[in-house]
């Protein structure tokens, strides 16, 4: 019998299937017996295995952390093909009515158009405009930004962000979705003075447009202003603004800090008073480190070899640091489809069965990347691509989106941004809109993981975010449409009609990132981390 088996002919397809584990037991047995006596097949099998190993070592770069944002841009800004080829008679009637209205609007508006304006988008008289649109105005000459910001408003009133693309181009970005089926007017209320001293007086309509009947689904017939770089640009704007104002302010807030955090750390540190007071002053400038991160169902492990430390960030908002032992253990592996414990953490993992229980299963692979840490008097800040963690010595941690890195995704522009929100008390006509004035809002600086219980977050003088903000940050979508965008960041603005007390003598506005794109971005950012962590974190502060 054995000799019969030995004399089996070489069967290369069978060998390949053997390598794939795709043979039943008898066939597998046949191959194994044959292999014992056939040098050629042994060599072939060894070659298959070595080539597979080599294939795995072919270098690949980890996906840039902007992928979620890029995907959001494509999903949001690209219209779906619609079934407009065969409209029903009702739609045709409605369309003709809209067209007549639009023509009337155009005729009405053209007469009002200021000669100082070159173009506006949506065009005057446009109809069926997405409720997610931004309004772009282009001027023939550079315009005084502050004057423009002080004099522009949307009617009916909507809180807006102002983003300058150039001295002649500005985007007015509504921070809340526009109401459907509503005519909006962008009004320049006072004069716009050019640097050369020209001034035009009076109230002018820059554009009039009507929004679509329903809040846009992903295939709205009118695409949102098609500019994928807009969001990043808005964030750059926010960054620039922050940098110009926060160096002095953070010192003012903390008294005598000799060192000022930089870049993304600065944005968090300057924008969040409770972070500032919780961390105290920096002890040293930030330093670059290598980080290894793995996310689990109920927490995150972050190893920083230069610090000799392994940080265990639990979903219950607490963290602890452990000594990072040299790691010689193999990757602990789960079955097919389960992420393995990364090599950096396998030693810790096997040594700490209790951590295995509390962390749960990994929900992604170990990620190694560049990072940065900065030590403070009462804690540390830790940057990994996409995220900034604030670890306080009182044992609590928070996580923030790294706005700086987001912004750095596009070329910085020397632009300025402000946020305007309506105030109800300054309109002599008594109508529902009001003059716009600066109001500090920092939506993206809201902690993405509610790592801290509510009580310690409430710094005196700082308005807490309304309770509906946090769920929004974690809102996710499935199926064909994005979630309803009522409330959220915009609600945060509306719920806080009086500007937050500014504790620093800065004359500049606080950093702001704009509009519904931000909300979608927040939602997409939440994709990067598994939802178990999110929900766990959200549930804990309230339930404890």
């Amino acid at each position, binding site marked *: 019998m054995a000799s019969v088996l030995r004399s089996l002919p070489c069967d*290369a*397809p069978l060998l*390949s*299937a053997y390598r*794939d*584990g*795709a043979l039943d037991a008898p066939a597998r047995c046949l191959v194994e017996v044959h292999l014992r006596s056939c040098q050629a097949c042994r060599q*072939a099998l*060894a070659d*298959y295995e*070595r*080539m*597979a190993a*080599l*294939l795995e*070592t*072919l*270098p*690949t*770069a*980890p*996906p*840039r952390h902007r*992928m*979620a944002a890029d*995907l959001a841009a*494509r999903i949001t800004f690209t219209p779906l093909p619609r079934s407009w080829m065969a409209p029903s008679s009702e739609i045709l009637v409605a369309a003709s009515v809209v067209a007549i209205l639009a023509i009337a609007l155009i005729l009405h508006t053209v007469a009002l158009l200021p000669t100082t304006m070159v173009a506006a988008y949506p065009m005057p008289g446009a109809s069926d405009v997405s409720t997610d649109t931004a309004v772009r105005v282009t001027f023939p000459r550079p315009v005084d930004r502050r004057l423009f910001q002080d004099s522009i408003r949307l009617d009916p009133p909507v809180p807006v962000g102002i983003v300058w693309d150039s001295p002649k181009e500005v985007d007015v970005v509504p921070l809340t979705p526009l109401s459907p089926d509503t005519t909006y007017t962008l009004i320049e209320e006072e004069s716009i003075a050019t640097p050369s001293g020209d001034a035009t007086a009076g109230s002018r309509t820059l554009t009039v447009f009507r929004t679509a009947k329903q809040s846009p689904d*992903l295939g709205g017939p009118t695409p949102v202003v098609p500019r994928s770089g807009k969001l990043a640009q808005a964030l750059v704007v926010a960054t620039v603004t922050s940098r110009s104002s926060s160096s002095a302010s953070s010192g003012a807030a903390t008294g005598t800090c000799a060192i000022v955090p930089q870049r993304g750390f600065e944005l968090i540190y300057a924008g969040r008073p409770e972070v500032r007071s919780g961390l105290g002053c920096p002890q040293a400038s930030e330093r670059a480190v290598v980080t290894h991160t793995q996310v689990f*169902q*109920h927490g995150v492990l972050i190893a920083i070899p230069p610090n000799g430390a392994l940080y265990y960030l639990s979903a219950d908002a607490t963290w602890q640091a452990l000594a990072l032992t040299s790691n010689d253990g193999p990757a*602990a*592996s*789960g079955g*097919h*489809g*389960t*992420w393995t*414990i990364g090599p950096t953490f396998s030693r810790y*993992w*096997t040594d700490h*069965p209790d951590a*295995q*229980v509390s962390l*749960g*299963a990994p*929900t*992604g*692979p170990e990620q190694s990347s560049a990072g940065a840490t900065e030590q403070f008097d009462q804690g540390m800040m830790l940057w990994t691509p996409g995220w900034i963690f604030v670890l306080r010595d009182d044992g609590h941690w928070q996580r923030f989106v790294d706005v700086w890195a987001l912004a750095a995704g596009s070329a910085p522009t020397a632009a300025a941004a402000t946020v305007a929100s309506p105030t109800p008390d300054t309109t002599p006509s008594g109508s529902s809109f009001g003059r716009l004035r600066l109001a500090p809002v920092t939506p993206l600086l809201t902690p993405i993981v509610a790592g801290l219980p509510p009580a310690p977050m409430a710094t005196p003088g700082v308005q807490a975010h309304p309770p509906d903000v946090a769920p929004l940050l974690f809102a*996710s*979508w*499935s*199926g*064909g449409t994005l979630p309803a965008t009522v409330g959220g960041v915009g609600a945060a603005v509306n719920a806080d009609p009086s500007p937050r007390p500014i504790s620093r003598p800065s004359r500049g506005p606080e950093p702001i990132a704009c509009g519904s794109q931000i909300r979608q971005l927040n*939602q997409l950012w*939440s*994709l*990067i*981390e598994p*939802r*178990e962590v999110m929900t766990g974190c959200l549930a804990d502060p309230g339930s404890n």
Partner: protein
Amino acid sequence: MDVPGVAPAVEPYEQASSIPTFEAAFATYHSAICAYLQRLIGNPDDAYDLTVASFEKAYRNWERAPAGNVAPWLYRIATNTCLDELRRRRLIRWQPFDKFAAVFQPRHVSRDNPERDVIRGEQCALLRSAMDKLNPRHRAALLMRECQGLSCTEVGEALGVSREAAKQLLFRARQQLREGYLALGGEPLDG
């Protein structure tokens, strides 16, 4: 995990019987699919764009995602997107390896054994050239099986063929890769 008595609290997405949400699928697979496409097309920037395009397609067709294991379906979209792009551009050739390596190689050269790394680099270059000569479908099948951990059945689903056909594809891919590697002057591989 492999620890006795400690069972994962929640089943991984792959074992769930219902369709995971799109964001869960994105969180789980975007990194793996980006790596797969990099190996398939040989250019990280193109792979990045193709990954985003693939997930966009997946999002827009999410109602057609199969219940249970969405991985083969996602790989199918990614593979088709990539092969369409290759056809469109007639860019069946890999990027020259040195160009690719110039960007990413430094991370992979360890200081403790430079000689081994040089040899490894040469082997990788030869293997990449051999991969270049493979039929793209063969290449895709092999990468999904060997690097992405898909089973023969899943590879078949991803390529729209039966399990037996997938096994044949894998066999031909391995055979051609091995022959190509040796024909390019690669030494027989040994441990």
